[in-house]
């Protein structure tokens, strides 16, 4: 079985976003950009399925500016076999990305597509579900456990009330949650090897997908800032404060 893993290049999760003074967005110039953490988990899960003998080939895909190649090289260094970069400058909305991925799925015919549940830049949490809809496939979102058994994948999902397990007919879509696995670091030899793994370059036009955004961002601003309050010196003082708040 082939597994397709879409990955997105985003502001590194350790960095605090800076809103641009003109309100046009978040400043991404001269800052570290990395693979979306949920996508790293997706790549790792695909590799583990390959190591278990369930998957035979892992294809990583990214849609974004030319530098997304670096993100794909990271996926290849972790253990993906080849990569597809669909170069697009500017906004790529989840719906357009899902349409591109559908076209790639039609070509590649994977048995499983594993995606991050959300990208930590726009926090949309949409692409996997949208891709599942466009393909008419079942979806196992927010996965904390993935088990392939024959023609079925059992996905344990992190839901508001606890955990839920669903059995999905393959081919299917899985989106990853935080506790599915701990992604590995690529070793230096693997980073070197990744440089010679195949990486195909495409454009949205190759797949006939219109990337025109449906949503216009009018303004991006800083959230209201909380002011640091006071420090109390003892538990007794804290008890008094809680009593003043009417909660004790």
């Amino acid at each position, binding site marked *: 079985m082939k597994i397709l893993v879409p990955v997105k290049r985003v*502001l590194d999760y350790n960095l*605090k*976003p800076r*809103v641009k003074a003109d309100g046009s967005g*978040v400043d991404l110039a001269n800052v570290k950009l990395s693979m979306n953490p949920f996508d790293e988990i997706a790549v790792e899960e695909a590799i583990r399925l390959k190591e278990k003998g369930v998957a035979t080939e892992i294809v990583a895909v990214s849609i974004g500016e030319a530098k997304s190649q670096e993100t794909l090289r990271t996926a290849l260094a972790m253990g993906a076999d080849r990569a597809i970069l669909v170069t697009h400058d500017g906004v790529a909305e989840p*719906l357009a990305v*899902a349409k591109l991925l559908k076209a790639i799925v039609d070509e590649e015919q994977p048995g499983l597509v594993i995606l991050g*549940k*959300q990208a930590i830049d*726009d*926090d*949309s949490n949409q692409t996997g*579900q*949208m*891709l*599942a*809809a*466009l393909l*008419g496939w*079942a*979806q196992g*979102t927010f996965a*904390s456990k993935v088990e392939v058994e024959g023609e079925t994948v059992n996905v344990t999902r*992190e839901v*508001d*009330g*606890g*955990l*839920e*397990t*669903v*059995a*999905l*007919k393959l081919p*299917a879509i899985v989106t990853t*949650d*935080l*506790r599915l696995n701990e992604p590995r670091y690529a070793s230096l030899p693997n980073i070197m090897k990744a440089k010679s793994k195949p990486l195909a370059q495409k454009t949205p036009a190759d797949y006939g997908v219109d990337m025109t*955004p*449906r*949503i*216009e*961002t009018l*303004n*991006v*601003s*800083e*959230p209201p800032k909380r002011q*640091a*309050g*006071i*420090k*109390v010196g003892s*538990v007794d*003082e*804290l*008890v008094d*404060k*809680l009593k003043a708040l009417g*909660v004790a």
Partner: protein
Amino acid sequence: MKTLVLVEHDNATLKDATLPVVTAAAKLGEVHLLVAGKGCAAVAEQATKIAGVGKVHLADDAALEHQLPENIAPLIVDLMGHHDAFLAPATTTGKNIAPRVAALLDVMQLSDIISVDGPDTFTRPIYAGNAIAQVKTSDTKLVITVRGTAFEKAASEGGSASVEAVSGASDAGSARFVSAEVAASERPELTSAKIIVSGGRGVGSGENYKALIEPLADKLGAAVGASRAAVDAGFVPNDYQVGQTGKIVAPEVYVAVGISGAIQHLAGMKDSKTIIAINKDEDAPIFQVADIGLVGDLFQIVPELTSKL
């Protein structure tokens, strides 16, 4: 504008998560609700009483019992033939279903809105709430998920909507519910609690969490939460997690114990009215957002606090 709101429920009881979505929908126009489930007539009955609701669509079918998006989304798409906007709570159920509906309608979803600024204009947090975007959609049908803490709850009594049965649900056959592990708790639910006590990595273990955090929460009548670090370390189950990718909460009082305050955690609780932080590291970022801070060893402070309340 005619709106359709997805009711969150467990086939027996309507969940509070529905109520802020009704408020958001009412800002757009007429509010219709959809109760989709199995044996859920009682939920529809509760839904008719929500203030401001015009009609309740009830789809009662075995294929809808577990809110599988494969089965529910086509039903919603049909109903969207005569509605202009679909709104769901930004819960794991809403987030699972709404994008599937959006793609089938060829609409770009607006995720996790925190205000309705016009018929096509909304505000939503991005980058874990470190930036706030005002966005305008050009789609003629709207698909929206709503952040519950950002809107007042609609009154759950006072309405008198009619119920209309919806037929045509079917099992897509691609997905099957297997099991659920739902933690039963006597404590208030995290997302609607007035007071929350959360523990972080500093708590050290699941035993310590039980011995320290839970008695304090019970003394305060509070819900219990946790940071990602505490969940990852296995101190508590995943449904305790507060943060960018866990639950978004905004209680009257949030007590953070042994939580350093990573931006991903702050994203989930910084709209709390009063934040209280207990941490041994006086430079911990949590103190930059806390209204009341106490620097010290939580293993001494928390038991003393619990005994003095």
